[in-house]
């Protein structure tokens, strides 16, 4: 096998082993007992958003940047106790006050890009409250091995359980 063939085989192997793009989408719906303007502000105002938008339990904020306007960017990065660093980089494409936010974002885990997604968030009045519909389409990349997030996922469930018991 020539050197060129060898490097080609290595390249193909690498492709098979490590490179993949999986397409996925999901929709989440929530109804909040708050008028849509207040729900919208929780997405639009830096201080308000920082109160609820963060990583799972055990995750500590490293850096946060927020520029909420069309073309503006948001960045949230943090670290788990085991050293894993997550980063969320978002660009806002379309914003209609109190109604709609369309954005795309890249997620990285310890410097590895794991997904590129586009999402739309729609707010609709429902009774005295607000119905929120979040739909995301994503390209999930390169055999992302979940970096312990299942463990964190379990933590989330326990966290939710704790919260429901307090209620």
């Amino acid at each position: 096998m020539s050197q060129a063939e060898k490097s080609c085989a290595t390249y193909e192997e690498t492709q098979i082993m490590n490179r993949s793009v999986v397409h996925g989408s999901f929709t989440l719906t929530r109804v909040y007992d708050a008028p849509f303007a207040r729900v919208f502000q929780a997405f639009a105002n830096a201080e308000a958003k920082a109160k609820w938008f963060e990583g799972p339990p055990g995750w500590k904020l490293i850096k946060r940047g927020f520029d909420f306007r069309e073309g503006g960017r948001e960045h949230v990065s943090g670290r788990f106790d085991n050293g894993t660093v997550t980063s969320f980089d978002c660009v806002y494409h379309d914003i209609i006050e109190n109604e709609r936010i369309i954005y795309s974002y890249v997620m990285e885990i310890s410097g590895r890009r794991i997904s590129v997604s586009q999402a739309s968030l729609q707010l609709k009045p429902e009774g005295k409250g607000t119905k929120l519909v979040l739909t995301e389409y994503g390209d999930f990349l390169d055999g992302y091995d979940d970096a312990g997030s299942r463990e964190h996922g379990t933590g989330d469930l326990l966290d939710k359980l704790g919260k429901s018991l307090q209620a």
Partner: protein
Amino acid sequence: MLNYQTPLDLAFQALADPARRSIVERLTKGPASVSELAKPLPMSLPAVMLHLKVLEESGLVKSHKVGRVRTCRIEAQPLSQAERWITERRQMWERNLDRLGAFLDDTKPEQEP
């Protein structure tokens, strides 16, 4: 050898039934109590619980009981890696949207109807 069943075999068997598929489909939208799962199904609660037992044995569904309420959720492990990714991302947003709800409750102004 005939008794040997891979997690995938069990998952396929579990999903061979339309009622169980509808339960799984419901659970992909988030955790639910047994009575919530039973509500849209044209069968008795004990029948639903039998289906849940099959789903739990296949590893597709996990449940836990708090007080008198048994809550079921999808267990991501037997799903393909692709589905796991998506489930995890969905969990990230579910967690944040739950926290948004708590934030909205905490900051509710007194004059709000």
